[in-house]
């Protein structure tokens, strides 16, 4: 299992051909209290960089972009009743969706954890 990060503050953890995607702890801290998460439909085809989910906080709504192309395999149903999981467990049980990768080579353009940490510190 390897975890990658984007400059837009998504993380993706890849196991086999499936990636689990969420927003980072830094991102949830910036957003504040999350009140609703709009999730992508299972089975929909997505391209890297597409806005596929929206995270609604008290103050604003934010797009979440898929870090990779592929097909949505699953959306996190637990978020319907407990969107605050994205605040409390952003990088674990507060994941947003799973995607079946169509082009794993896209991962090479993403940051690893150390690079993301440096990136956040530069903000």
């Amino acid at each position, binding site marked *: 299992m390897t975890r990658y990060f984007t400059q837009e503050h998504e993380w993706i953890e890849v196991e086999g051909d499936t990636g689990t995607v969420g*927003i980072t702890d830094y991102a949830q801290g910036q957003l*504040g*209290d999350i009140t609703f998460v*709009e999730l992508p439909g299972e089975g929909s085809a997505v391209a890297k960089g597409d806005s596929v989910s929206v995270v*609604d*906080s*008290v*103050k*604003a709504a934010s*797009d979440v972009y898929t870090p990779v192309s592929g097909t949505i395999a699953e959306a996190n149903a637990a978020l319907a009743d407990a969107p605050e999981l994205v605040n409390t467990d952003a990088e674990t049980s507060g994941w947003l969706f799973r995607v079946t990768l169509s082009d794993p080579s896209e991962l090479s353009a993403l940051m690893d954890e150390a690079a993301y940490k440096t990136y956040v510190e530069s903000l």
Partner: protein
Amino acid sequence: MSEIDTPGDEETAIEPQLLPLDPWHRTRGGRMVEFAGYWMPVQFEGIIAEHLWTRESAGLFDVSHMGQLEVSGEGAAAALETLLPGDISALKPGRLRYSLLLDENGGILDDLMVTNRGDAFYIVVNGATKWDDIAHLREFLPDAITLNHLDEHGLLALQGPKAASALGRLGLTPASPDGPGLDELKFMQAAKFEWQGRPLAISRSGYTGEDGFEISVRGEDIEALADALCDQPEVKPIGLGARDSLRLEAGLPLYGHDLSPEIDPVSAGLSFAVSKRRRAEGGFLGAERILAQLEGGTATARVGLALEGRMAAREGATVWSGDRQVGVVTSGGFSPTLQRPIAMAYVERPLGAEGTALELEMRGKRLPASVVAMPFVPHRYHR
């Protein structure tokens, strides 16, 4: 991830200015954002926690970005009445009321609070509009009337059911021997006090729907006062985010969003700001159009909407009745008290009746909503 919309994202190329409490906010963990030309705290511990704290205890808001003005001189009341639709002449010393700055077409240039201080009318206007307001007042007020911008004063709002007990513990004394004590002030009354020799001008008013006070304080005294208030166990500092969600629940419009020069007081549901005598006599900018609207009504009305589900509709969302667009949302968000999204919108007046089922379009989705009475959360003023 990137933000789709942010309340208060007024665009400006000018470097934001610093308020007197700026370092205090940063020390206390305030997340600073640019608002109305200033760096201001949008939140401290989190918007929902701050919101609920204010509803059950007391929150301290720094609103020093707002414009504090004094209008004085022989005939000041009559002069103000040429620009405001309220009965300023009948406003007794120590009383304040809500009013509107109107243009020639009856459009709303700003909303404001005007207090009769005895020797002057004290006016608090919105931060983002204060420079335009000052220009407007200078243009229309006669030369004999003095307009003073109290730009060396800050403004704090202490709001919530425990505001009175917290402020009472500071031991304020009336500035004049015949002035009311703090506990004698009722909603929409004001007086001057002294705190450890420092002058404070206090009104029992606010923007949350709760009991509370707005305190005008010299810039050099504001940090000591903010510290003394936050030393009280009931009081925590509150950011702009909760200020917005609290006023939304209270059904109070926000200038630049729910009110603008394109909106008139009758459509906005602010006809109460046009006093009875002024309706009979007119004589204020925009009177012709507004008096006609009071008589004949307006095509649209500001209404409250309660949404089903948890997805919020934001400013700009369109309002639909079947396949017909009938309005637009001007403010919206999640209500921490009601635990559901609420919104304000302008809709065709016949569709503004309580209970009317409508749909809001947000990001291509239709969200069911119904018209509800405002305030969404009952006011608890000290009357």
